[in-house]
């Protein structure tokens, strides 16, 4: 797989993302084998390992987490590679730069593998000549403005390696804020990816290997379609994912089925550490991910070529070239959270528009009837009339997110109001609203049809008001930590206004792409 897609250069530092599960453990074993061969086909990169402890959100007790960590550490120590154990709680300490592409955007395809390797080796020599490579790392760290990630976070309980209970509690609350299991799973994946990416950046790794098996990739393909990420399928499931710029994510196990991997692990004695997955509060309320997994595996039992067919079809997808409409060389606007090109900018996106209209209406206070969003009066006043500061911050964020990230985000910063259900735009409601155009409260004569003048007003209002406010003093920030912290704070009315306002601190000099 690596030989076919020649993207890893000899001597390059590659980070292996271990989850403890069968696929990533098999990947580790294969890397060990590949490195130890004496032939010319020996793998020649420098591996490191990272493990993210997610026990806090999977309902594990601290004792269980410690035990898991001990087992994982035993396994990684035996390999002899450098390893990093991270906790999901550390996601709160991530710098804002995690949400931006790295300095070296890898969009231009290399002319040929050989030249790319030569370039790479030359660069390594350069860095070595610049004082043993020591200069580059501090420089890079300064660029990232990393906050310190001490091993245990805040003063942890003595004798343990887990982060402080307060951090864990905060993380659990964050996940509690997301109502559906689907949103929780998406959030978990997002945080995990960011943590791994951050580890790679700070430790100088340019590639990350994820252990997604063929089965997992096929399930992900269909799940992402259902989540509204159809535009990004190639990036989410392809062999190489270079959305982050300086760090590329590679999936070398994507051709091996879960069954093959299970047999391999059994016959070759590959150690694994299985941790329980996210649990739903009620048994029936499963997630789209689980549903799709059940569906595909059920089909596979009867028709054994199902998964490979889905996989092969997905293989034909390729990342789209830059839009023909925009100026050549212009960077497409990217989603804040998942760094994929925004797919919500098209003005003729009718499926999305009624959702936006309904939300806009839902957020407005029960004002005088007949008030359109930006009727008469000044454009700024509509947003100022929002009841809580949370609404503006939330509205400020939404235009920066792609469609599926919006759905996840909306669940977390749901406004709990006296009116109850109508304000919430949970995933279960978002889709039908968009398509059938659920009625707004009858007192407001807002049209749903695409009338040009109204539509122009609406589109002009929603993103621009939001952006204008955010470009102002206390608008938005690229800080994942603040974003996450303010999430559950906004959701609770008792906590909301004070915490929400305090959470949005503007970082000087950090401007988000796309804001004018």
């Amino acid at each position, binding site marked *: 797989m690596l030989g076919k897609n020649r993207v890893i250069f000899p001597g390059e530092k590659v980070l292996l993302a271990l989850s403890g599960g*069968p696929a990533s453990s098999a990947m580790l074993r294969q890397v060990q084998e590949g490195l130890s061969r004496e032939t010319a086909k020996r793998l020649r990169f420098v591996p490191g390992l990272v493990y993210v402890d997610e026990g806090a959100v999977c309902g594990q007790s601290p004792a269980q987490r410690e035990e898991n960590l001990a087992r994982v550490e035993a396994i990684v120590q035996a390999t002899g590679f450098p390893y990093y154990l991270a906790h999901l709680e550390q996601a709160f300490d991530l710098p804002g730069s995690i949400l931006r592409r790295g300095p070296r955007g890898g969009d231009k395809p290399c002319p040929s593998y050989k030249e790319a390797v030569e370039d790479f080796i030359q660069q390594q020599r350069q860095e070595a000549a610049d004082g043993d490579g020591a200069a580059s790392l501090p420089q890079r760290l300064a660029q990232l403005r990393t906050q310190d990630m001490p091993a245990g976070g805040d003063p942890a309980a003595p004798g343990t390696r887990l982060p402080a209970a307060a951090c864990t509690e905060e993380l659990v609350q964050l996940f509690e804020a997301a109502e559906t299991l689907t949103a929780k799973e998406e959030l978990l994946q997002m945080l995990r990816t960011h943590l791994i990416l951050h580890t790679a950046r700070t430790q100088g790794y340019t590639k990350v290997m994820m252990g997604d098996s063929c*089965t997992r990739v096929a399930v992900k393909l269909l799940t992402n379609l259902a989540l509204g990420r159809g535009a990004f399928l190639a990036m989410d499931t392809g062999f190489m994912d270079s959305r982050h710029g300086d760090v590329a994510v590679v999936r070398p196990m994507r051709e091996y089925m*879960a*069954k093959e*991997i*299970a*047999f391999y692990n*059994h*016959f070759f004695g590959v150690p*694994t550490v*299985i941790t*329980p*997955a996210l*649990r739903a509060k009620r*048994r029936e309320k499963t997630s789209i*991910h*689980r549903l799709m*997994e*059940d569906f595909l*595996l*059920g089909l*596979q*039992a009867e028709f054994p070529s199902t998964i490979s067919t889905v996989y092969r079809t997905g293989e034909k997808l390729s990342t789209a070239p830059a839009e023909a409409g925009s100026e050549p060389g212009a960077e497409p606007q990217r989603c804040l959270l998942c760094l994929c090109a925004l797919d919500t900018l098209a003005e003729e996106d009718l499926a999305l528009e009624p959702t936006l209209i309904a939300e806009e209406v839902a957020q407005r206070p029960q004002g005088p009837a007949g008030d359109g969003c930006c009727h008469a009066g000044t454009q700024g006043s509509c947003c100022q009339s929002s009841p809580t500061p949370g609404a503006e911050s939330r509205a400020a964020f939404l235009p920066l997110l792609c469609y599926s990230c919006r759905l996840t985000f909306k669940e977390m910063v749901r406004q709990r109001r006296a009116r109850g259900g109508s304000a919430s735009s949970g995933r279960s409601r978002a889709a039908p609203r968009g398509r059938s155009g659920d009625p707004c409260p009858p007192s407001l004569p807002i049209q749903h049809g695409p009338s040009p003048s109204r539509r122009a007003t609406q589109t002009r209002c929603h993103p621009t008001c939001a952006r204008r406010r955010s470009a102002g003093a206390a608008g938005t920030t690229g800080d994942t930590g603040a974003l996450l912290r303010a999430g559950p704070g906004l959701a609770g009315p008792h906590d909301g206004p004070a915490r929400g306002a305090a959470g949005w601190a503007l970082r000087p000099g950090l401007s988000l792409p796309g804001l004018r």
Partner: protein
Amino acid sequence: AAAAICLVCSFHFRGGAELLFDGVKKHQVTLPCQPEPWDIRNLLKWIKQNLLKERPELFMQGDSVRPGILVLINDADWELMGELDYKLQDQDNVLFISTLHGG
């Protein structure tokens, strides 16, 4: 007289399946002697009644195991041995590996 078949077998649960069995990965079991032969179908019913500690729908689906759970009989895929119709022999070793995400 009909010969009662008594079997001593071992069952292993891996890949997350052990979480449904109190975390116990290896079970050495003497199956109760009975005139009917022990095929996998009957075995699964017995396991569901006696070994499975929680959430049976995560392990079984109807007569058979849930799709996504692999069954190895003496280190061979059960599809080669006849799946549910395979007749257990004495000292057989049955391994259940879950490839699912979990409950």
